[in-house]
C-alpha cells in the first residue's frame, strides 16, 4: 500500500547518491594542487597521510572501491590542510553543534510561524493579520547576514540583554537560533495562513459547522490537518535553507559548528573537508526530504495510492 510509494522514492535516490559519491571521488582525486596533480603543493606530512589512505599506487578502480568501503565505515579521509586531523574528527566535533543550532532554529521557525499564521487565519483582515504578515515580508526579504548583525547590535551591544558570540550558556543559543529561524518563521507563517484560509473555504468545513461543532473544534480537528500540509512540504526546503543559513550564522556568532569549518576549509582549499562535508550535507538533505515525503503521505491519505 504505502510501500510502493516509499520504494519509488528510494529508487530515485539511490542512483543519485551513487552519482554524487562518484563525483566526489573524482573531484578529490583531481583537486588542483592536490597530491594527485602534478603540482603537489601539499605539505609532506599531509602527502604521507594521503598516500597511506588512498593507496595512490593502486589502479584507479581499486582506489574507487576503497573509497566506497571507507565511506561505509564512515571514514571520510584525512584533511588536506591539517596534517594530524581527519575529516571525521573535524565533523565529529562540529556536527553536534550545528545540529543543535539547526534544530533550535527549525523549532523557532515552526512555533512562531504556525502560531502567527494560525492567528492571522483565525482573524483575517484585522490587526492580528496585518502586523504578523508585515513582519513576515521583512523576514522573507531580509537576508540572514543583515538580520543577525542587527539583532546583535540591538540586543547584544545596545541593550546588553544577550551575549553576542560563543556557544557556552543557554543565552548564547538564543540570538543565533532566532536569527536563523526568522526567515523560515516568516515563510511558514504565510504558508500556514494561506493553507488554513483555503481549508476554511472548503465545503467539508460547512458540513462540520452543520453538525454543531464549535469554531475551535473545527480548527483543531478539521482545518489543521489539511491546512498544515503546505507547511509540511516546506520543511524539506526549509531544512536545506537552514543548513545554508547556518554557514553565515555560525560565522557571525563565532560558533564552532560545521558550517564555519566548511567556510574556513573553502577559503583554505581543504578539498577533503569541503567534499566530505558537502557529501554529508547532501545525504542529510536527501534523508530529510525523504522523511518529509513520508510524513506528508501519512497526513494526506489520498497520496498513499499515487
Amino acid at each position: 500500500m504505502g510501500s510502493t510509494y516509499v520504494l519509488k522514492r528510494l529508487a530515485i535516490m539511490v542512483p543519485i547518491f551513487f552519482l554524487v559519491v562518484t563525483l566526489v571521488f573524482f573531484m578529490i582525486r583531481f583537486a588542483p594542487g592536490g597530491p594527485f596533480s602534478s603540482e603537489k603543493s601539499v605539505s609532506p606530512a599531509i602527502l604521507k597521510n594521503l598516500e597511506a589512505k588512498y593507496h595512490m599506487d593502486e589502479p584507479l578502480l581499486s582506489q574507487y572501491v576503497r573509497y566506497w568501503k571507507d565511506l561505509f565505515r564512515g571514514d571520510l579521509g584525512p584533511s588536506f590542510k591539517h596534517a594530524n586531523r581527519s575529516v571525521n574528527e573535524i565533523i565529529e566535533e562540529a556536527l553536534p553543534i550545528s545540529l543543535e543550532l539547526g534544530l533550535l532554529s527549525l523549532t523557532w521557525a515552526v512555533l512562531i510561524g504556525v502560531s502567527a499564521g494560525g492567528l492571522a487565519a483565525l482573524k483575517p483582515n484585522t490587526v492580528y493579520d496585518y502586523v504578523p504578515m508585515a513582519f513576515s515580508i521583512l523576514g522573507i526579504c531580509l537576508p540572514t547576514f543583515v538580520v543577525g548583525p542587527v539583532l546583535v547590535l540591538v540586543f547584544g551591544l545596545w541593550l546588553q540583554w544577550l551575549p553576542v558570540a560563543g556557544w557556552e550558556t543557554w543565552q548564547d543559543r538564543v540570538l543565533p537560533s532566532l536569527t536563523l529561524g526568522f526567515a523560515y518563521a516568516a515563510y511558514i507563517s504565510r504558508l500556514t495562513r494561506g493553507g488554513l484560509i483555503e481549508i476554511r473555504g472548503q465545503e467539508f468545513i460547512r458540513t462540520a459547522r452543520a453538525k454543531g461543532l464549535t469554531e475551535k473544534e473545527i480548527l483543531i480537528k478539521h482545518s489543521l490537518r489539511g491546512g498544515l500540509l503546505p507547511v509540511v512540504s516546506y520543511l524539506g526546503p526549509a531544512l536545506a535553507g537552514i543548513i545554508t543559513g547556518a554557514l553565515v550564522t555560525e560565522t557571525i556568532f563565532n560558533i564552532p559548528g560545521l558550517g564555519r569549518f566548511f567556510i574556513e576549509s573553502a577559503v583554505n582549499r581543504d578539498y577533503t573537508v569541503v567534499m566530505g562535508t558537502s557529501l554529508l550535507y547532501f545525504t542529510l538533505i536527501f534523508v530529510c526530504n525523504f522523511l518529509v515525503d513520508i510524513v506528508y503521505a501519512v497526513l494526506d491519505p489520498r497520496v498513499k495510492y499515487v
Partner: protein
Amino acid sequence: MSNSLWTDALHRLKKNKLALLGASFLILELMIFFLIPVLARLGYEAQDLELTFAAPSPVHWFGTDSLGRDLFSRVIFGGRISLTVGLLASLVSALVGVVYGSLSGFLGGKIDNSMMRIVDVLYALPFIFLVIILMVYFGRNFILLFVALGLTQWLTMARIVRGQVLSLRHKEFIEAANSLGLRQRDIVLKHLIPNTLGPVIVYLTLTVPSVILEEAFLSYLGLGIQAPLASWGTLIKEGVDVMDLAPWTLFFPAFFLSATLFSLNFLGDGLRDALDPKGARD
C-alpha cells in the same frame, strides 16, 4: 494582437501601490548609481587615515569606514557591482531556463518527463554548496561567479517556461496556425515566444533579487567578489566587523541591499498579479 494584454497589465500594475513604490525606488537607485558618477566623486578607494570611522557629515554623507574611505561612494560602487552581477547572472539563468524549459515542453512525452525529473531532483539541492565548491576548485574569477550564480536559479524558470509551452502547444490558435500551413519556425517565433514572454519577465524580475542575495551571501563569507572590488555583501561584512564602533558602516549598505530586494520583490509580485488576470491572492 497582444497589445491589449500588455496595456491591461500595465493598468493593473499602476494600481498596485507597493509595486509602484518598488519600481520608483529602483529607477531612482539606477539613476543615482549609474548615471551620476559625479556623486561618487570621492572615490571608493581613496583612503584618509586621519578620518577613520567618521560619522556621517556634510563631506562624507554616509561617514567613513575603517580605512577612512568615503562610505557613500563605496555604497554606490558596491551597488553597481551587486546590481550588475545580479542582472547578468539572472540573464544567464533565464537563458538556460528558457532553453531547457522550451525544449522540454516542445519535445514532450518521455523526454519531457525525464527532463523534469532531473529538475525535481536538483530542486532539493542547496546550490550554494555547488557554487562554493566551484569557487574552491576554479578560483574566484568574475565570469565564473556569473555562471555559477546563474546556474542556481534556472530551475524555476525552466519549470515556468515548460508549463507555458505545454499549455500553448495545445491551444487552438497553434492548431489554427498549423492548419494554415505556417512553418514550425514561424509558429515558435511569432506565437509561442510572445506569449511566453510575460511569465519570463515576471520571473526574471523575481530572480534578480535572489541572485543579488546569493552574491551578497558569498561576498559576506569572503568567497564572492574579491578586493579591491567590493559589493554590498563585502561592505556589510566590513560593517559587521566594526559595528560597535561605527554602526553606520553596517547600516547604509544593509539598508540599500534590503530596500533593493524589497523593491524588486514587490515589483515582481506586482507584475505577476498584473499579468495573471485570474490572480489568486492570499
